[in-house]
Structure formats: C-alpha cells, structure tokens
C-alpha cells in the first residue's frame, strides 16, 4: 500500500464504530442520501435544443388482461361455452393493441426562463417552462419533469407537468425555487411519452441550458475572529506578544540608544531623571488561510434536508474573511477537496470581490458533494506547498472522521498555527447517530488536549456565539 493510498478519503480510515469497515456499506449511504429517483441519475448531458431518448420500452401493464383473455379462451373452447370465449376477445384486443403500438416520437422544443439568474440567498426565483411539440404526431400522454438543480428546493408550484400535445401545440408551466449560495446549471427537461393505452413509453431528455448564480454578500458587521498567538514580524493590526511601535501600552523599559524620542516617557524622566522608553504592543499583519473540508464524506447534516456541514462551513468562512480582512489581515482560501482550490491571501477591494465570488462559486466549495473521493495526503501536500511558514490555518471541518483530525494534528506538529471551526453535523435520533456524536467529541477533546483551539459550532447557533463560547476556554 502506498502512502497516497493509505489516506484516501472514504476508503481508508481508522476504524471507529461509525467508520469501521464491517459497519460500512457505501451503497446504503448513497441510497439514503439520494433523495431523487433513478431516471435522471444516468441522464446524458444534452446540448441545448437537442433531444436524446434515454429509454424506450413496454410498460407491461396489460400482462394481467392478456392472461385473463387467454384463460377465457382456453376455458371457452374446452367447455364449448360462448360467453368466456367472446369476453376473451375484448381482452385479446386490448393486449394486442398494446403489442403492436409503439411509443409516440418525442421531438420537443423547450424554452426555460429564469426570472432572476443572479438572486440573493433565500430569494424565491420563478422559473417558467414552455414546451412545444415539434413532431408531426400527437403525444396522447406526455409527462414532463424539469431539471431543477440538485441543491435547490422548489418552494412554489411544481416542476412536473402533464399534457396532451398535438403537432405544433405548446404548454407552459411554472414553479419557484429558493436560491442558495453557488453556481447552478439546470439539467435538461425529462419527458415521458406514452401511447393511448399506456402500453409503451419513451423517456427522453431535452436539453435547455439555464443557470442561476447566487453570490452572498459579506456581512457588514462580522464578529471578531480570534487567531492564535503570532510570532512573525510584519507590522499590522494583530496584537502580538512583544513591545515596540503601536498604539496600545505594553511596558516601559530603560532607554536604549536609537529609541525614537517620541517614545521617551518625558514625564517620568522629569520626575526621576532617568530616560525611560515606552513600548507599545506591536500589531502585526497575519496571513490567514481559510481551508474547507469539502470531501464527499463531509457533506453531512443533522437531518437529511438541513444545510450540510460544508454549507455552514463556507458561510462561516465568509464571515471569517470579512472579520479578518477588516482587522487588517491577509486572507486566502483553500480546500481539502478532490481538485485544486486556492486563492492566495490578500485584502483590499479587488481581493474582497474576488474572494466573494470564489467562496460562492468555486466548484470545490460547491454545496453539491463531489463525485470523487479525496486523497487527503495529496490535498494536504498541495496545501502545504501554498502555505508560508507564518500563515495561520483556519480549518473548517465537521471532524466526522479521524482523517482530518489527524491531519490537523500533523499540521500543528509541523509548526503551522491551526484553528479548527467545526460545524456539528451530528444528531441523537438513533444508536448510530449517538455513536457518531460520541466519536466526534473525542476527536475534539484530543485536538484540544494538543492545545489546538476547536470551535464546536452547533447547528442552532450563529458563528459569533460559538466563537464567544469557545473563547471563554481559549486564550490565543
């Protein structure tokens, strides 16, 4: 086993109860997580205006009638009775019709209008879909399901519609979705067309590209975000642990040649006759990297339809960015994710705007779980290459497994000052949930025992409150 293999997310974890191999069945979790059905799971990517038939088959809903008809035929002939024989004729006619018919063609033109393609989080965005039958045959039973992006919930109307469409006829339906942070692409519209008897059906996906991009604003009054004691010598606004130039009184000391005259305590000199220099608390700029654990396994929540730990982490990171840059620090963004994700530390209006869009729309920070596992070793190495020795790391992770907790401990051991903000995704509804909560608590306790500050951020509180609660026990 190579080093890389040893730390691949979801595949190789230290066996806790919730993690242990004999209690894990990936398919179970996948089934539970996928609240959406299978029709669109393998749906192809379809260009706008194109129609791709995914499936064409017989529904077999007339099997029962066919059986009864044959039974009537057999009994009628055997007993020389006319009634069952004639009755079987009707059944055979129905079954025969279903056998010879084919599903109607699907040649649809779809036009989707998104009322506000750049909404604020929480806005209700109306979506209107107009479907026109471009085929030369009537579709007697047409069911439509619009391709709402995975992470958007429908809050009004329904993305489903049924219609009978003659050649050239159109039908329109609308619904509204609740905007969430991120860049979303609508999938193609799925159409299910059946013949009159419903014996055959054709499933097709009709391409129509629409997007919705929701970029939250930074909070105007973010809570102070604590960092760890800093030893690096860049003048800035972080109160360091040494005296020098600054604004806050730190200490007095005997005058040394070269001290600026402006820092000489003349009153004391007049009183005692000794030259005394005033030291102020030196304020320093800190480089901070906000790093998000966005592995597939980190997309967890206390209940299936609450915001995930990743979603809360990025919201918290947005607040942290606003708070830290307001305090004069350089702030960057990274992720422990399958793919590279890095925004170099900086500040100022341009960097702020860049960070706002980066946090909202970078694929690695998406609210949708990534398809691939994350090689944590490789992701950490990538990150370490980006971090300078004096960069503080604020890691956002639900700490749902030992892998990230071990990585934090290793970063700390290598001299990086790490603060962990952990959105709590655990619940107490079942035995398994209780076990997972107990294990997470132990991980937090273990990190704290190494003097690594951990902000345990409960689902029902805002980040500011969690920071205040944590600072009671932690002095940076």
């Amino acid at each position, binding site marked *: 086993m190579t080093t890389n293999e040893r730390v691949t997310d979801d595949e190789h974890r230290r*066996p*806790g*109860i919730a993690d*242990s191999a*004999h*209690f*894990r069945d990936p398919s179970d*979790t996948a089934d*539970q*997580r*996928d*609240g*959406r*059905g299978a*029709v669109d799971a393998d749906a192809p990517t379809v260009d706008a205006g194109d129609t791709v038939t995914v499936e064409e088959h017989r529904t*077999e*809903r007339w*099997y029962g009638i066919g*059986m009864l008809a044959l*039974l009537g*035929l*057999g*009994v009628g*002939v*055997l007993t020389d009775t*006319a009634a069952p024989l004639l009755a079987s*004729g009707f059944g055979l006619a129905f079954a*025969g019709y279903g056998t*010879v018919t084919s599903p109607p063609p699907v040649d649809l033109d779809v036009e989707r209008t998104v009322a506000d393609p750049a909404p604020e989080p929480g806005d209700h965005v109306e979506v209107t879909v107009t479907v026109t039958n471009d085929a030369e045959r009537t579709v007697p039973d047409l069911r439509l*399901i619009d391709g*709402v992006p995975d*992470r*958007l*919930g429908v809050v009004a109307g329904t*993305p489903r519609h049924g219609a009978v469409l003659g050649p050239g006829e159109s039908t329109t339906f609308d619904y509204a979705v609740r905007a969430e942070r991120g860049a979303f692409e609508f999938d193609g519209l*799925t159409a*299910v067309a059946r013949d009159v008897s419903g014996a055959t*059906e054709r*499933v097709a996906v009709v391409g129509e590209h629409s997007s919705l991009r929701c970029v939250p604003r930074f909070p105007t009054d973010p809570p102070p975000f604590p960092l760890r004691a800093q030893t690096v010598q860049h003048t800035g606004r972080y109160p360091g642990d040494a005296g020098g130039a600054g604004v806050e009184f730190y200490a007095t000391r005997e005058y040394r040649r070269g001290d600026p005259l402006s820092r000489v305590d003349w009153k004391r000199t007049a009183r005692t006759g000794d030259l005394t220099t005033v030291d102020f608390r030196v304020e320093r700029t800190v480089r901070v990297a906000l790093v998000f654990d966005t592995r597939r396994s980190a997309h*967890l929540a*206390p*209940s*299936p*339809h609450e915001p*995930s730990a990743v979603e809360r982490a990025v919201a918290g990171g947005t607040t942290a960015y606003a708070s830290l840059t307001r305090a004069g620090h350089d702030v960057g963004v990274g992720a422990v994710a399958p793919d590279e994700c890095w925004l170099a530390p900086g500040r100022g209006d341009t960097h702020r705007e860049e960070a706002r869009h980066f946090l909202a729309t970078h694929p690695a920070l998406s609210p949708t779980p990534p398809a691939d596992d994350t090689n944590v070793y490789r992701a950490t190495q990538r990150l370490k290459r980006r971090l300078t020795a004096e960069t503080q790391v604020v890691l956002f992770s*639900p700490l749902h497994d030992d892998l990230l907790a071990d990585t934090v401990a290793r970063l700390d051991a290598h001299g990086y000052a790490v603060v962990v903000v952990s959105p709590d*995704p*655990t619940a107490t509804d*079942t*035995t*398994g*949930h*209780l*076990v997972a909560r*107990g294990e*997470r*608590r*132990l991980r*937090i*306790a273990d990190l704290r025992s190494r003097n690594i500050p951990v902000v345990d951020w409960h689902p029902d509180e805002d980040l500011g409150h969690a920071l205040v609660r944590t600072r009671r026990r932690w002095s940076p």
Partner: protein
Amino acid sequence: MNSREALLTVGVATAVVGIAVVYVPVATFVDVPSSVPLLISAVALVAALVRGRAWLTHESRDVRPAERERPSAMGVPGDEVDVTLARAPPVGSTGGRGGADNRRIQFRQSLRDLAVETLVTFQGYTTEEARRAVDRGTWTDDPHAAAFFTTPTGEARSVAGSVRGTFSGERPFHRRAEHAASEIEQLGRGADA
C-alpha cells in the same frame, strides 16, 4: 408491417376462422377433429399460465420520475451504523447466526472501546478503572446500558429471552445498544459548554 404485427394479424385471423368454424353452421365445411379444440384449449391455458407467471413476477417498468422538488438529501453521521444494526437479526432467529453473532460482537467491542475512551477523557477515569467499570456495569445507572457490556454478545442469554425474541421480534441487543450509546453520549455532554 413488422414481425410482431404480422404475428398478431395471423393470430387474429386464425381466431376469427376458428370461431366461425365452431359457431356458424354455414361454415362447417371442414370436419374439425375433436382433438383440435382440446389442443387449442391446452395451448391457451398454458399461454395463460406463462403470462400469469410473468405478470406476478415482473416488476413495474413504468418510469418513476425523479424527485426534483426537494434538495438532494444529506447523510447523517452514523447512518451506516444504523443500517448495519438493522440488518442484524433478532435474538433467536435462524440463518446466518454465526455471522450475525460476529457482527454483534464486533459492534459491542467497538462501543466498549468508545465507552472506555469517553470515561477516560471526560470522567477522569484511568484506562484500567474505565475498563473495569464497563465490564462490571458500574459505569452507568441504566441497567440496559450496563447489561450491554456484561454479557459476551451484549444480549439476553436466558431461554425465556431467546423465546421471547423469536416470537415477538423484540431485539434486546438493539435496545441495549441504544441505551449504551445514549449513556456514552451523556457522559461527554458538557465538554463543550
């Protein structure tokens, strides 16, 4: 005309001729052997049986449109433990007993480790004291939670318990596991207050 349609046409035509031969006196120009109706009847009944079997065993192929109304569901930490626990058969059930016992023993051992670590981390026990407390059942006031670690597989060993489990579907292992997990969770409460 495709083969399916051709076959249907032949079938319908044959049926019409057959019915005419049997029921229309004018059409009795052919002397039909008495075995022919019997043969037709047998073929129809066999076909009905085949069709009926297919009807009973086939799964509906109607397309179930995907749910699009709600955001895709997130997992909850520990779901996989619950899935595995749900698969463990009740006490006294037959089939795969050895494997089920193994899974239960492994789970119990893992939960025991968690209990010990929790007692050490949050209650100030030494590792040895914690192990002793768990094995003796003195770590909690909850008798169900205590009993989970005091029997080799964490479940009732009495005959009455096994019989009750067999007939009622009651799952003492699961109930005790839930109590134990709940007690462990409570021991760690307040750690982050």
